[in-house]
């Protein structure tokens, strides 16, 4: 069974359908709605939407929790999580964590941009948390190969506090020069 959800206007309709169905749903069924935006094969339908396939379970869960509590704000996601319980969120997180990270075929950054990213890493220590090769672990997200435009948007959102659910990342992004963010996103997307 595949629900039809159009990206722009259909979300709420599609969610209403979820809420209305009386049958208990399996995690696969609960995950169907996600594909409308995060992609049926893990490749998001919009450049500014993140990859969630193969992302770490703990991180996925915390983000769903934060969307639900309002600590992280996004109109699309707020609607998605409204009726999810903690167990639902944990199960969805486990479900997507087990999937394989998709290859978005993003180009590796030119040397000059990689050099900027390395300099940023020396001064801020990104890999102290995001770990070697920016693979993340547990509650720290994988950045390597994430959608380019989403990476750039999230770094800017941390900086401006539009994304305020991690003051630590906000402080680190404030300590990073605005001009370094674009090369950083190029580097991470192609890493």
């Amino acid at each position, binding site marked *: 069974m595949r629900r039809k959800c159009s990206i722009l206007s259909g979300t709420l309709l599609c969610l209403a359908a979820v809420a209305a169905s009386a049958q208990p749903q399996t995690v696969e069924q609960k995950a169907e709605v996600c594909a409308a935006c995060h992609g049926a094969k893990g490749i998001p339908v919009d450049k500014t939407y993140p990859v969630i396939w193969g992302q*770490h*379970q*703990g991180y996925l*869960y*915390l983000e769903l929790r*934060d969307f639900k*509590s309002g*600590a992280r704000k996004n109109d699309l996601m707020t609607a998605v999580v409204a009726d999810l319980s903690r167990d639902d969120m*944990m199960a969805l*997180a*486990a479900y997507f*964590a087990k999937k394989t990270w998709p290859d978005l075929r993003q180009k590796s950054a030119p040397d000059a941009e990689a050099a900027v990213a390395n300099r940023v890493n*020396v*001064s*801020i*220590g990104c*890999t*102290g948390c995001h770990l*070697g*090769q920016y*693979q993340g*672990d*547990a*509650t720290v997200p994988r950045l390597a190969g994430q959608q380019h435009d989403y990476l750039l948007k999230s770094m800017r959102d941390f900086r401006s506090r539009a994304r*305020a*659910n*991690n*003051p*630590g990342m*906000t*402080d*680190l992004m*404030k*300590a990073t020069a605005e001009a370094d963010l674009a090369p950083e996103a190029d580097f991470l997307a192609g890493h």
Partner: protein
Amino acid sequence: MLMPDMPVLRRLAVMASVAAAGLFNIGSALADETKPATLYGDMSSVTQDMLDRAGQNGNDFLLTNGNYSQQRFYPNAQINRGNVARLRPAWIFQTDLMESMETSPIIVNGIMYVTTSFDHVYALDARTGEELWHYQQKLGPITTYCCGPNNRGVAVYGDAVYLATLDSKLVALDAKTGKVKWSSDIADPEAGYSETMAPTAVDGKILVGTNGGEYGIRGFVKAFDAKDGHVIWTFYTIPEKNLGVWAEKDATGRDLHRDIATEKANAPQATELYKRLGGGVWQNPSVDLATRRVYFSVGNPSPDLDGAARPGDNLYTDSLVSVDLDTGKYICHFQYVPHDVWDLDAVSPTVLVDAMDNDGKVVPAVMEGGKTGHVYVNRRSDCGLIRFSEAMVPQENMWTLPTAAGARMLPGANGGVEWSPMATDPSLGLVYAINLHQPMTYTVTSAPYPNGKLWLGGAFAVIPTEAQWGNITAVDYNTGKIRWQVKTPEPMIGGILATAGGLVFTGEGNGRFAAYDSANGSRLWQFQAGAGVNAPPSSYNVDGKQYIAVAAGGNVQLNYKRGNAIIAFTLPE
């Protein structure tokens, strides 16, 4: 968690185990022979009597810091000033994981127990480095740790090996097989709790503190029953009444520049403060068996740099605390830095010695190496300060308050002395500490508590244009004077061991592991380990040969080159 998600690391691990099998396991042909007896015969079970006498035992290394006093003084002189120049590797064991290592090897009757990042435990034949078993904790989905996926080692007691994990569990393993006997929850990782310390086993209890001062936790030390893992007592390092005495000065008498009027005005609203005021306990407590008291150091308040939301002295953060071993009841405390807004806290483990008080009387004392760069010497009876040492690293602009733009102050937020345990040589009256010199700026920003996520209230940033370095410092604890100092090219983190051979052993981020004359600091031997040696060394004796063992795995926090080696050194035949 790690292995399925990280193909790169897995490949490295496979390579490493191939290398270990092919090249490095010198002497593995001996593996099938029976093991000759050592001092304790064939006892592989650890009794309380053995632990009580660990400090006089020149065969085993039974407690994280050598003995319950945590002196890290090893009573075996076979390797000594006269022959250390000939020390060479006996074997190298490579773990499955190329990541930061902070483990203190524990050795029981020829069996060595070591841990790695992400909570792997290995039992090794201490003569050969041959692997006897390997345990990997299946970490839950949520782990919250600020400073690397580290683990500092196990505790041994009875027939079990105890591990505290990143997802905040205490696990008892069968010492012979590595199979899980039981597992208990210590605290909720979603609320910011995690474990990297080695537990301490004493009298049927397993004592463990908690990380989380960077996450808005309520710190504690808990005692678990060694048999079944139930909680016997919990001491919260943050009491409900934590305002204190509105101290204007730190332990050394320097002005903290607090705005006490504003703090007092904010205090009535701060009734829930204790639930998220931090106060992690990162390292093992010392145990005074005569008085049945334990002593430990308590870390920073949360959030680290922003004091606005936490009026008062923030008891018992940045403090020495003593509690009753049997009940966990408070006995006394001494706060080194009231209302800390620099994270210049107390993390290095406490050390018990007998020291001269200010009337020239020798009294039971307890020492702590502060991130401030001072060694503090306190009375064990009432926790009161006897003296503090000369500063071991440059101090500048103390205590300048953090600003929105960033204010420079020395030492940087890693110290001074980080979590690295100190060593002592009671016959010389010296305590040895390894230090960092990292000029930093301290920046403050206010943000509400982000629910179990990193909460620093600002940032510490290394000033890239200023030189960083480290040192090894020997302090006379009866006077507080520095006896000798050796400068190292990089900030030091890991640990140090003193031996009856008149030596101290310690390692550096650049891979150098070296022995120094404990009386004057002259370097007598060195070895290049190929990866950062940022873990405390241990020593042991099997078949009449003394060994020095240390991990070379590098360090996440200071980004020192990663490795995966446990190296055991001995003298040639």
